[in-house]
């Protein structure tokens, strides 16, 4: 976890940290103060590391850099992200110097507990400003806070703000700039004598004769060290000062307990008593509070039966929307890219460059960008649920179920985030206090079907699952299949968790403890910004990794491009043309009175007949596309019969020229088809001879039992660094190996028509299912593995994750295919 603040020496500007309890609107305030101009050091939507931004309009020459930190309840640092907050605030080594000032954001509707953390921060010896956020909500509920009285009592500035509306920001900026000059507040708290004695003695013993490189703990840190056996503070100090510290601490704790104090309660008792005192004088309530609105909503939303039902309905709704809303958009983008590809085909001369751009870049990267609408809808749902406060209720509802696998409800939130992307999901496990629970959550997070798997599911479902309403017309079969795919990953995750909890990660189940914040209307600005950030990240990824891999795959599939293939097929083309010319001569021989030197089709009668025949065929095509008749359907056959009758009547009408025209048409069509087949065969030959094709020949025996051909196998392998690549790869492989004229077909149509050498269709429902199941379970994401390594600080766990997931994926795909073909 490498985060660093610029040190005082290196830069001439001031650094101010923004801290506070979770759900106080810190990030909203941060965005408002920096005007959304930030350097985001982490994944969109998750404040798990610090975010930097420059505060606008500070006045005066100095620039102020604002640092947004994760929410924290206490400087005891019980979880990994609270540890980050602590480290940044006290300025330990890897974070650079301590900030020049600290802004504590408090929720005005929840002052007592917010002040617990604020009082700890005020003891750090840095300048502090208190930003009282959401004062509008407080006032609406009849609460008034005398911020001047508070400020006077505390000796720090207390600024009321409403971050969502931008109220009080200027005053806050001024207060921040002033506080940097003013200096640190005095610590107001009085701990019992027994505690104070041990504190001072501990600080003295730690300050010792050691060189100044060791950070000397402040009083609040010493307090946390004493009161939290086995905690973050103790661990850090023991690393610095040696294991003898353990004994010293045990003795000191023993003396505190002997004096009649409880280690668990003493700090809370002292702080809340002090808080009660200061709030009593500063806060007035004009009316007693009835049942808060949130609680009324929670009667249903957290109800064990109805709450779950609503949750399931929401999930189904999400999947259904993905199809309903995104469908038209997807088709539009798909069509756009196909059109672009055709234009390139016409604009550039045939050869490596044209192929690179059309088959590599457009078919590749373009194929992935088509899925942007779906992914954005998924992110929209998750962002709205997070922003309105419903996530905590989901954790509450699922706590019992999570208990079945040995985790608690809090672990569900990172898993839910992993449905969008496992990387921020894994990072957000830093809020989980228990180390074993955190590791378990990290290890099963990649099984949650992330947004990169969505294109694979959607493409294959759209191509091979019929679009039928089921369950009384409420839901479509396609949407249901999508839901089923998500369930595959989830069910396997449950099984893996059960196994791990009994073996590698044994430990007691942690009891649920989580605040359920008041519901609020999701802020459109926040949600849209979050979606924008994630869409941008997706496009950047499409633009870089996928682009790079698409190019590589293209190159592997294009070269060596031996001339022998071209010449062999040119010979075939020549003979086909020759045959056509011969047929033309035979036909003209039949037509009595043909004028020498005039091309057959220009003979006036023949030309007229040709035009008429053309008309009938065009009418047939128009009719078929207008009514969208499927191949072999009743409607299509009927239309064809009519067209054939029309042709027969024209031939009869024109007499010999009519027959000639008909024969001409047939011969031309035969030539076209033959040339097309030769083109297809040529492309196929190029592909088989290419590096990719040869690699594929090796793969085929391994993937045959799964129902795959070598192209799917190669695409799956290419997807190991990043699974988004598979669509791009399939786009390229099928384009390269396909009739170069048919670029107007999307990838879906290509998959539906792809065939083995013997003509059998490659893709059918069992194959599609086996591919989807493989992708549901396989670990194909370098970024995820890198994140696991970083969060667990070891290579063991990413290797373990990769191995178990890939093995499971292969076996599951095998079973799926072999079972499905028995039923198909």
């Amino acid at each position: 976890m490498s985060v660093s603040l610029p040190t005082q020496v290196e830069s001439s500007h001031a650094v101010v940290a923004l801290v506070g309890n979770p759900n106080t609107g810190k990030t909203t305030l941060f965005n408002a103060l920096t005007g959304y101009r930030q350097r985001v050091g982490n994944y969109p939507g998750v404040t798990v590391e610090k975010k930097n931004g420059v505060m606008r309009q500070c006045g005066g020459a100095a620039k102020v850099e604002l640092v947004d930190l994760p929410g924290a309840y206490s400087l005891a640092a019980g979880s990994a992200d609270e540890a980050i907050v602590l480290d940044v605030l006290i300025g330990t080594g890897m974070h650079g110097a301590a900030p020049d000032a600290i802004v504590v954001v408090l929720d005005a509707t929840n002052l007592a507990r917010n002040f617990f953390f604020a009082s700890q921060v005020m003891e750090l010896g840095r300048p502090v400003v208190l930003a009282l956020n959401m004062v509008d909500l407080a006032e609406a509920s009849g609460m008034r806070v005398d911020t001047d009285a508070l400020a006077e009592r505390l000796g720090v500035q207390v600024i009321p703000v409403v971050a969502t509306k931008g109220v009080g920001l200027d005053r806050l900026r001024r207060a921040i700039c002033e506080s940097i000059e003013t200096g640190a507040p005095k610590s107001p708290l009085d701990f019992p004598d027994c505690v104070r004695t041990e504190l001072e003695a501990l600080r003295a013993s730690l300050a010792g004769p050691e060189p100044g490189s060791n950070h000397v703990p402040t009083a609040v840190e010493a307090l946390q060290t004493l009161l939290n056996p086995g905690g973050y503070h103790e661990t850090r100090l023991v690393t610095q000062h040696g294991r003898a510290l353990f004994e010293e601490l045990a003795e000191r704790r023993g003396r505190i307990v002997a004096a009649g104090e409880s280690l668990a309660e003493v700090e809370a008792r002292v702080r809340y008593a002090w808080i009660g005192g200061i709030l009593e004088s500063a806060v007035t309530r004009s009316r007693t509070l009835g049942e808060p609105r949130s609680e009324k909503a929670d009667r249903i939303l957290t109800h064990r039966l109805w709450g779950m039902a609503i949750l399931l309905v929401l999930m189904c709704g999400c999947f259904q929307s993905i199809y309903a809303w995104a469908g038209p958009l997807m088709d539009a983008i798909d069509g756009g890219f196909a059109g672009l590809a055709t234009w390139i085909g016409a604009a550039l001369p045939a050869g490596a460059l044209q192929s690179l751009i059309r088959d590599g870049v457009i078919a590749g990267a373009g194929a992935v960008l088509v899925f942007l609408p779906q992914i954005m809808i998924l992110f929209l749902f998750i962002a709205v649920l997070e922003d309105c406060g419903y996530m905590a209720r989901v954790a509450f509802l699922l706590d019992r179920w999570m208990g079945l696998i040995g985790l608690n409800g809090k672990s569900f939130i990172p898993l839910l985030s992993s449905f969008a992307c496992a990387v921020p999901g894994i990072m957000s496990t830093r809020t989980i206090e228990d180390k074993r629970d955190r590791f378990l959550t990290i290890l099963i997070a990649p099984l949650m079907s992330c947004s990169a798997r969505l294109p694979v599911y959607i493409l294959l479902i759209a191509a091979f699952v019929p679009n039928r309403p089921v369950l009384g017309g409420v839901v479509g079969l396609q949407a249901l299949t999508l839901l089923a795919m998500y369930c595959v990953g989830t069910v396997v995750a449950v099984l893996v968790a059960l196994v791990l909890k009994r073996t590698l990660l044994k430990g007691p189940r942690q009891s649920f403890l989580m605040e359920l914040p008041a519901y609020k209307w999701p802020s459109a600005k926040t949600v849209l910004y979050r979606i924008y950030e994630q869409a941008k990240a997706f496009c950047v990824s499409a633009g870089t990794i996928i682009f790079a891999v698409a190019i590589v795959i293209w190159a592997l599939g294009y070269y060596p491009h031996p001339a022998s293939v071209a010449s062999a097929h040119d010979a075939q083309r020549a003979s086909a043309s020759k045959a056509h010319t011969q047929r033309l001569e035979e036909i003209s021989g039949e037509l009595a009175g043909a004028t020498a030197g005039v091309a057959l089709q220009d003979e006036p009668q023949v030309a007229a007949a040709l035009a008429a025949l053309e008309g009938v065929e065009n009418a047939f095509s128009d009719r078929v596309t207008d009514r969208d008749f499927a191949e072999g359907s009743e409607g299509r056959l009927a239309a064809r019969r009519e067209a054939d009758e029309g042709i027969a009547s024209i031939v009869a009408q024109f007499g010999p020229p009519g027959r000639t025209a008909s024969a001409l048409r047939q011969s031309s069509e035969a030539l076209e088809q033959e040339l097309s087949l030769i083109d297809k065969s040529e492309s196929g030959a190029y592909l088989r001879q290419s590096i990719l094709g040869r690699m594929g020949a090796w793969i085929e025996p391994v993937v045959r039992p799964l129902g795959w051909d070598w192209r799917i196998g190669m695409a799956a392998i290419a997807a190991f660094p990043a699974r988004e690549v598979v669509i791009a790869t399939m786009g390229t492989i099928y384009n390269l190996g396909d009739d170069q004229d048919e670029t107007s077909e999307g990838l879906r149509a290509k998959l539906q028509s792809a065939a083995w050498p013997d003509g059998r269709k490659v893709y059918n429902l069992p194959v599609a299912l086996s591919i989807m199941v493989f992708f549901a379970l396989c670990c194909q994401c370098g970024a995820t593995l890198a994140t696991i390594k970083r969060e667990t600080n070891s290579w063991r766990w990413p290797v373990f994750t990769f191995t178990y997931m890939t093995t499971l994926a292969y076996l599951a795909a095998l079973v799926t295919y072999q079972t499905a073909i028995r039923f198909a």
Partner: protein
Amino acid sequence: MNDTGLASFGRGDSGVIEGVVGALPSSKRLADLGFVRGAMIMMVYPGIPCIVRISGRCVGLGAEHQRSIKLSTM
């Protein structure tokens, strides 16, 4: 001190906290969140986990945490 604690509360029942017991760090975390002597606690939704209201906001509590909270006899 009342031994039945939160487990016996129905919806709407309330009480005053006497203190928290149980192993560190879990009990300290509870205390730091405001579950201290003298605080008023009301049961919003009983069960495991339950939802209680304390100091004007709602907190979800699992079984072990529910057992850790000792209530004063009213």
